[in-house]
């Protein structure tokens, strides 16, 4: 089982189990337990709170030492500035163009990588050949290498391919290094799919693609969601490739945000930085809140994270 903590384990993350019941020590002061859990909720939420309230107050309130306080004067000016007028690098464009770059990068990269992963998973489980496990192992290992190891040749290769410093180049890079994981997801999922159905269809004369299209694909919904969410989160959040292979006008959101925050010219507009940080976080947070169950499942079965 290539996904270590995966399947056996995720199956039961739903309701508290009978095991929990026996272990629920009546000796434990329940109140203390809830207090501790509550304190940890605060711990995890605190940075989000800090980002949110400080993105909605004037800079003067922050510099006066009021970081933890609610805004005295509420304002959305920092958001407007972060979105459309803040100085990012050399230009005062706000983060909008970079947000769009990230979208243009993430959508095709996720789509292509998912389709390839599905086909690979199908071949590796339903058309097994000698050495299939080895091929899979080699694909998978590619996910875990430190990407520092490929930065230098990749920079040259993108140049040779004529897509250096473009969003297309980033799409390509993310696709190449996403294949391992998308293959992993679909392979594990299709492994549990009954071979008999495939064989029956084959006897009826269905070909390779017909079987995939008519039999496997219709039941691939859940794993496709897991795979798409995983790729979306990873690619949206990537920084290393974005920083290495993009030009000023093709930078993704994470790189632009970092430039905004690190820029040493002028006054540090913390409120604008926080607004920008939330903007960069919103798409993945949204996905997490809407489809958290699938997000967790992806994390667990891709347990060794890329």
């Amino acid at each position, binding site marked *: 089982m290539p996904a270590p903590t995966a399947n056996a384990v995720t199956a039961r993350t739903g309701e508290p189990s009978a095991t929990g019941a026996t272990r629920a020590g009546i000796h434990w002061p329940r109140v203390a337990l809830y207090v501790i859990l509550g304190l940890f909720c605060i711990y995890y939420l605190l940075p989000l709170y800090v980002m949110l309230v400080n993105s909605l107050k004037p800079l003067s309130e922050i510099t006066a030492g009021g970081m933890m306080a609610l805004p005295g004067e509420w304002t959305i000016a920092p958001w407007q500035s972060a979105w459309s007028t803040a100085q990012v690098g050399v230009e005062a464009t706000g983060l909008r163009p970079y947000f769009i770059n990230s979208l243009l990068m993430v959508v095709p990269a996720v789509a292509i990588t998912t389709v390839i992963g599905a086909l690979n998973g199908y071949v590796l489980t339903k058309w097994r050949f000698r050495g299939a496990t080895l091929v899979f192992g080699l694909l998978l290992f590619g996910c875990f290498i430190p990407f520092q190891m490929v930065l230098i040749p990749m920079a040259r290769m993108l140049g040779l391919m004529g897509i250096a410093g473009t969003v297309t180049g980033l799409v390509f890079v993310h696709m190449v290094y996403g294949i391992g994981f998308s293959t992993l997801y679909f392979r594990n999922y299709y492994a549990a799919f009954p071979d008999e159905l495939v064989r029956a269809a084959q006897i009826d004369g269905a070909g390779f693609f017909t079987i995939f299209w008519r039999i496997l694909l219709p039941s691939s919904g859940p794993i496709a969601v897991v795979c798409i969410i995983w790729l979306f989160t990873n690619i949206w959040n990537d920084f290393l490739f974005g920083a290495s292979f993009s030009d000023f006008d093709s930078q993704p959101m*994470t790189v632009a945000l970092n430039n905004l925050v690190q820029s040493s010219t002028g006054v540090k507009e913390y409120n604008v930085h926080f607004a920008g940080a939330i903007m960069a976080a919103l798409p993945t947070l949204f996905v997490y809140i809407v489809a958290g169950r699938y997000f967790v499942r992806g994390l667990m079965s891709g347990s060794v994270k890329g």
Partner: protein
Amino acid sequence: MAISDTVRHRGAADRLRDLLPKLVLSPSVALVGIFVYGFILFTLYLSFTDSRILPSFGWVGWQNYGFLFRIRAWDTALTNLVIFGTLYIVICCLLGLLLAIFLDQRIRAEGFIRTIYLYPMALSFIVTGVAWKWFLDPGIGVEAVVRGWGFESFTFDWIKDSDMAIYTIVIAAVWQTSGFVMAMFLAGLRGIDSEMLRAAEIDGASTMALYRRIVIPQLRPAFMSAFVVLAHMAIKSYDLVIALTNGGPGTATEVPATFMYSYTFTRNQMGIGASSAVIMMLTIAAIIVPYLWSELREKK
């Protein structure tokens, strides 16, 4: 396995059909072959050359590795990786285990609490870095706030302190990942045989003994996965350091990933940069290869 064998007719078209699955797989194999394994070999080769701004093919043997280990910034990077990696793994595991055990006590609103603990995992390390960078900044963050509350002498300026800055990276990284480790342990806890626990409980074992003797030993696989995930993330960590401290103050929070980047792309010492990448690669391989090996073998 046997599917392709059931087809017995042997025309040219049929042979093509038999080849089709491999044809479908082959672009991926080719891509990974070139862009992963080919590139690894290329970088490995570069690490033995005199490459500076651009790749060059003048063979210099082990010279880059000799230089590398005499560079103070690399020494700092390795020391930091050990400090960061150890604390990160240990704290994440302890915190994750503790929270998982607490959450496994038939907690009301468990799903809701889990959602809160785990959400940082959905964020980019850059976002985490920005949030914690200003939160820990003595000028406006915790220090300023506590002083504002009347504790005038309160000091918390680790992020500006060369000796302590690396610990701020631990703080932010633990915040981001511990919820995920919690989820892994929680899943492990839910997989434990409840009969055995009930039996031990009837035998009069205390809750503490129950956990020490039965539950935690059974979490071994979860610990293994957590260790591999965290070690792997620690070695690769780059974004967070860049966003939080940018390697500073000075080079105080340099880690191998930032070292590799700056030597290769800003200091134009590509040969040395490549050799540092090779060291990172070997460290990760030492953890991942045995792990993948055992996982893939079990399956057979």
